[in-house]
C-alpha cells in the first residue's frame, strides 16, 4: 500500500488543459522533489492533490480516493500545503495565524517556534508586517500546525535572501531527520533538492516524463528537463 498515489492525473483550468497525465507515488516519510521548468504543471499538480482544482485520474492517500473529498477534508486527512507566494492571513498576528490552523498533534505553538525562533520573537506581530522570509516560515509553521503526514512546499525559498534560504533548507532537513513527515518539494535549486530528497519526479508540458531515485538523477537528465 502506498501512501500517496497519483496516476494519469489530468486537470483543466476552464477550457484549457494543464495536466495531461502525471504519475507520482510517495511512501510515508519520503521526501520527493517535483521538478520541471516554469509552466510545466508543478503547481497545478499540487493544487490537484489538494483538491483546489478539478482533476481526473487516480489520486489516493492511504488508498482512499481524494477525488471524493473537498479541499478541507484533504487537509484534515493530513495534507499540509505551503502555497506558492506564502499567503499568510495578513491581518492576523503570527500567533493567531498559527492558532487558527491548529489541529491536535505533536506540532504546537512551542514546537513551531522552536523550529523557527524568528516566529517566536515576532509572535504578536501582524503577518503583513513580516519580511518575506518570516512570512515563508509562518506559512510553513501554519501548515505544520495542522499536524500533516504529507507536507507540500511549493517554491518555499523563492525570492528570498541566501541566508534566509539556508534557514529554510535547514528546517526542511530537520523535519526530514527528526519527524516522520513525507515532504513533496517544488523548488528551483536542483542542488538543494538533490541534497535533501530521496526521489525526484520531473514534469514537462503537464506530463511526468522522468522519475527515479535522486541518485539516478544525472546532470544530463536535469539539464535536459530542468535546464540546469
Amino acid at each position: 500500500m502506498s501512501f500517496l498515489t497519483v496516476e494519469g492525473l489530468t486537470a483543466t483550468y476552464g477550457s484549457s488543459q494543464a495536466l495531461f497525465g502525471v504519475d507520482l507515488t510517495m511512501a510515508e516519510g519520503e521526501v520527493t522533489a517535483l521538478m520541471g521548468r516554469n509552466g510545466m504543471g508543478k503547481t497545478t499538480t499540487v493544487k490537484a492533490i489538494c483538491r483546489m482544482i478539478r482533476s481526473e485520474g487516480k489520486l489516493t492517500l492511504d488508498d482512499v480516493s481524494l477525488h471524493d473529498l473537498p479541499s478541507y477534508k484533504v487537509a484534515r486527512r493530513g495534507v499540509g500545503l505551503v502555497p506558492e507566494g506564502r499567503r499568510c492571513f495578513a491581518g492576523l498576528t503570527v500567533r493567531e495565524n498559527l492558532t487558527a490552523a491548529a489541529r491536535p498533534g505533536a506540532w504546537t505553538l512551542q514546537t513551531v517556534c522552536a523550529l523557527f525562533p524568528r516566529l517566536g520573537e515576532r509572535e504578536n506581530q501582524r503577518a503583513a508586517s513580516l519580511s518575506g522570509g518570516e512570512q515563508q516560515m509562518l506559512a510553513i509553521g501554519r501548515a505544520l500546525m495542522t499536524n500533516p503526514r504529507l507536507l507540500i512546499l511549493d517554491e518555499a525559498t523563492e525570492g528570498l535572501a541566501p541566508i534566509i534560504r539556508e534557514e529554510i533548507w535547514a528546517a526542511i532537513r530537520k523535519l526530514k531527520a527528526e519527524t516522520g513527515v513525507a515532504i513533496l518539494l517544488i523548488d528551483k535549486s536542483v542542488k538543494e533538492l538533490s541534497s535533501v530528497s530521496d526521489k525526484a519526479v520531473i514534469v514537462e508540458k503537464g506530463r511526468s516524463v522522468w522519475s527515479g531515485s535522486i541518485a539516478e538523477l544525472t546532470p544530463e537528465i536535469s539539464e535536459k528537463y530542468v535546464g540546469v
Partner: protein
Amino acid sequence: MRLNETYINAAVLIGLLVVPLWAVMVDEPFTITLATKAVILALAAVGLNLILGIGGMVSFGHALFFGLGGYAMGILAYHAQTFTMLDLGLFSTGGTKMMPIIWLVAIAVSAVIAFLMGQLVLRTGGVYFIMITLAFAQMFYYFSISWSQYGGEDGLSIYVRNEFPGLNTLDPIQFFGICFAILCVVLLLFSRLQTSPFGLALNATRQTAKRVETVGLNPMHLKLVAFVLSGAITGLAGAMFADLNRFVSPTMFSWHLSGELIILIIIGGVGRLMGPVIGACIFVVLEHFLGGLTTYWHIFLGLIMLAIVFFARGGVIGLLTGKEGAHV
C-alpha cells in the same frame, strides 16, 4: 492623542452605567429609557458585528432577526395577556409573560431561521449576499404587514411589560439593569470568541477563504456558525426592544433598521468590541437631540457617516486609538 482601546472600552461601559444612575438621582426616567434603548441597539449591533466585523459578511437584512425576536415577544405576551391559546399545530400554549422564557424562544427562533437562511445566503458573496439578505428581511416585513392576527401594519401593543423573577421591570432603572447585564455578558462572549481559534479562523476566512480550506477548515461551516450566533444575538435584542417599547410592528423588520445597525457599527468601529456600543450611544443621542430640533435629523447622521468614511475609517474607536483596522 492616542488612547489604549481597553481604557476606551472600560470608559464607555462605565459611562453607559453612570448616566442612568445619575438620571435616577435627578429623577429623569426618560434618560434611563434612552440609555436602555442604546444598550439594546448596541446588543443588536454586536450580533451583526460578529459576522460583519469579524467574518466580513455585510448582512443588509439583520432587521429580520430583530423583528423575529420582537414578534416572539409580542405573540407570547399577547396570548398570555389576553388569556388565549397559541396553537402551534403539534401543541398549544397560553403564551408567557416571563422574560427569560421569551428570550430563549426569541434566540431559538432566530437561530433556526438563521440556520436555514444561512444554507442559502452564505453560498453567495459580495453584493449578492447584501441583496439576498435584504430580500429575506423584506419577505418577513411584508408578511408581518399582512399578518392581521397580530396587528398587521398597525403592530401589536403589549400593555404591561413582561416580568423578570425578583425584579420590577416597570421600574426603568431595573429594566435597564437587566439589559445592561445581558449586553455585558454578550460583550464578554464576543471578546472571548474574537480571540478563540474559531474567531481567528472566521477572521482568516474573511481574508482568504481558499487558504482556510488548505489548513483543514470548512469556511462554510465557520460562516454558518457565526451567522447563527449573530442572528440569535440580534433576535434576543429584538425581544428586549419590543419589551422596552411594549410594542411590536413591521418596522422592526424594515430595511431602515438593517441599515441603521450597519451604520452604528461603522460609526463606532467595524470589528471592534465596543464599536457597536459607541455607535448606538451616538445614534441615540443624535436621534434625541437633533430629532428634537428637526425631523430631518438623518441629514446630520449622513454627514457624520461621510466624515467617518472619508476621515476615520476605523470609526470613533479608530480615531481615538490611532489604529484604523480592528485587527491591528
